[in-house]
């Protein structure tokens, strides 16, 4: 429509959004088809929609919103992935985030979901293949997003959790047939790079100290929240397999079998196997991995 006709509130808002969120800035945004479909303006006609002030033109005033839009959201994405931002450097990180926000603009009332698809976006675009470590970036993004979600997601603070003493009193065959309910905040992750160790190293690094990007190596990690603080645990392959089976609802015996299938666990003597399992469960219960245990008779 020509500017002399009065556009509806809906058209004004769609136009305004198209203009101030355009990646090329206000002038490009106003000239873009998306904005022109709503309010057709020739170059220099912005002031038929937005008034100039004594000191600024309409384009300059609209640019306050445009600059703020990108600056704010880039900063927020960076805050969601601080270690990844450190790894990449701010400029490279912002480049990825700028592309991401164009592909997946926020559609939620909360900024807490702004980075939800960033790991997926990195996987889809496989950035920096020339550097040979897109998997590192993707894994690190997954770790940071998981940490953020566990930090402010549902937890078990103030609730009674399964203790090692609860398990001690059970006959072995009853324990084997039982199912363990993991705490609601437990997450199990498998990485292609040791990003959890890298995450720790970056957090502990002195200011200005550069932490080298690690070589690829499998890293298996459990994450949970206890006393409102996120805790991270490196797992061996059989430990990870066992816990994955538990989370999937398998019985303890089935979970142990799953662990044996990915390791030489069954090559151990019965006593050595029992000692290993006991040590694992003692540690996991002490750290609050399990909410409860359901045996065939009654829940504990």
């Amino acid at each position, binding site marked *: 429509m020509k500017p002399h006709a009065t556009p509806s*509130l809906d058209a*004004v808002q769609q136009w305004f*959004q198209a203009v101030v969120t355009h990646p090329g800035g206000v002038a490009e945004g106003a000239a873009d088809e998306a904005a022109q479909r709503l309010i057709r303006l020739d170059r220099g006609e912005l002031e038929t929609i937005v008034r100039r002030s004594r000191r600024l033109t309409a384009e*300059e005033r609209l640019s306050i*919103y445009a600059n703020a839009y990108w600056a704010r959201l880039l900063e*927020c994405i960076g*805050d969601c992935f601080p270690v990844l931002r450190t790894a990449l450097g701010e400029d490279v990180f912002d480049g990825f985030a700028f592309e991401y926000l164009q592909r997946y603009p926020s559609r939620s009332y*909360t900024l807490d979901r702004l980075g939800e698809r960033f790991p997926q976006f990195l996987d889809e675009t496989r950035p920096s293949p020339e550097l040979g470590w897109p998997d590192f970036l993707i894994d690190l993004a997954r770790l940071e997003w998981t940490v953020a979600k566990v930090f402010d997601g549902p937890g078990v603070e103030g609730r009674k959790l399964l203790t090692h003493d609860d398990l001690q009193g059970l006959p072995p065959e009853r324990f084997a047939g039982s199912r363990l309910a993991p705490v609601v905040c437990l997450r199990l992750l498998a990485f292609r790079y040791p990003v959890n160790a890298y995450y720790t190293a970056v957090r502990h690094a002195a200011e200005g100290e550069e932490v080298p990007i690690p070589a690829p190596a499998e890293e298996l990690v459990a994450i949970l929240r206890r006393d409102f603080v996120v805790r991270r645990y490196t797992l061996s392959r059989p430990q990870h397999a066992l816990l994955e089976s538990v989370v999937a609802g398998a019985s303890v015996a089935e979970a142990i079998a799953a662990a044996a299938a990915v390791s030489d666990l069954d090559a151990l003597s019965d006593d050595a196997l029992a000692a290993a399992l006991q040590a694992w469960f003692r540690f996991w219960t002490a750290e609050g991995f399990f909410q409860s245990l359901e045996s065939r008779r009654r829940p504990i």
Partner: protein
Amino acid sequence: MTAVTAGRLGHPNLGLGVGLRSVHFDHILRTQPDVDWFEIISENYVDSGGRPRYVLQQLAERYPIVMHGVSLSIGSTDPLDFEYLKKLKVLAREVNARWISDHLCWTGVLGRNTHDLLPVPFTEQTLRHVVERLRIVQDVLERPFVLENPSSYVTFTRSTMEEHELISRMAEDADCGLLLDVNNVYVSSFNHDLDPEAFIRALPHERIVQFHLAGHTNYVTHLIDTHDGHVIDPVWDLYRLAHELTGGVSTLLEWDARIPPFPVLHDEVLKAKRFMGERLAPGSEKDDKDDRDSKDGREDLLSAGGSLVPHPLHHIPPEVE
């Protein structure tokens, strides 16, 4: 002095409060400061299942809480988000929120959220649209609701009334309260070449339930509502006027970037006491000018990125061992 009508729509004057920010959680829990009340950013807590909500629950046992949102998007032509409203309602009940507030703005259309407080044109169509939605929001929330005048950086040629007229008629027609952000009046008036005193004088003062105070950044050609510093003297002067016209309402200091230690924040809002009594002698008991002047912002505007952006919403960093 203008006659004071029965004020605040009957809501209490909670005194002098500050915005609750996660960097101060430990200090507040440890020292239990003598603050009259806290205002939270609703979006930081409605979905929280972790420490932020736990801290809030603890504070709500000791301090009055007010919920201040940035995502209602009352002016948007998109449908209202009833999932969001339901969450507000649940949290308000949980913390016994004295009232819930948001801004006269829109945040996005076509399902998108820019996470900014975008300006509405001041027209009869906008007025009808906002009033209709305010009635729905108040019916859903079943709790006092107040709307804030945002800082703005543009005005529309199609506007047929002043902002204060839209706000006044909106508050009357929708029967809602007002949150008068004194700093926003100053910022917008500077940006739009208007008189901030006239704006404040024109409002229905008996509907003003709360004040906001904050710092801003002066880019010479325009002001930006950055909430990153002390309240400047001209804003305190407007506060004194607003205090006289309303008879005094709950006052809250917002500080959202370059956040100082908690006692600095608290001291800042306590300065409001100086502006509540008799008119002070010119120049007395005032702070040094602290309007953080920037270089002329003009050259930055058409290039990407400014050094400071308004931050209506916060990221609460996770605590990780």
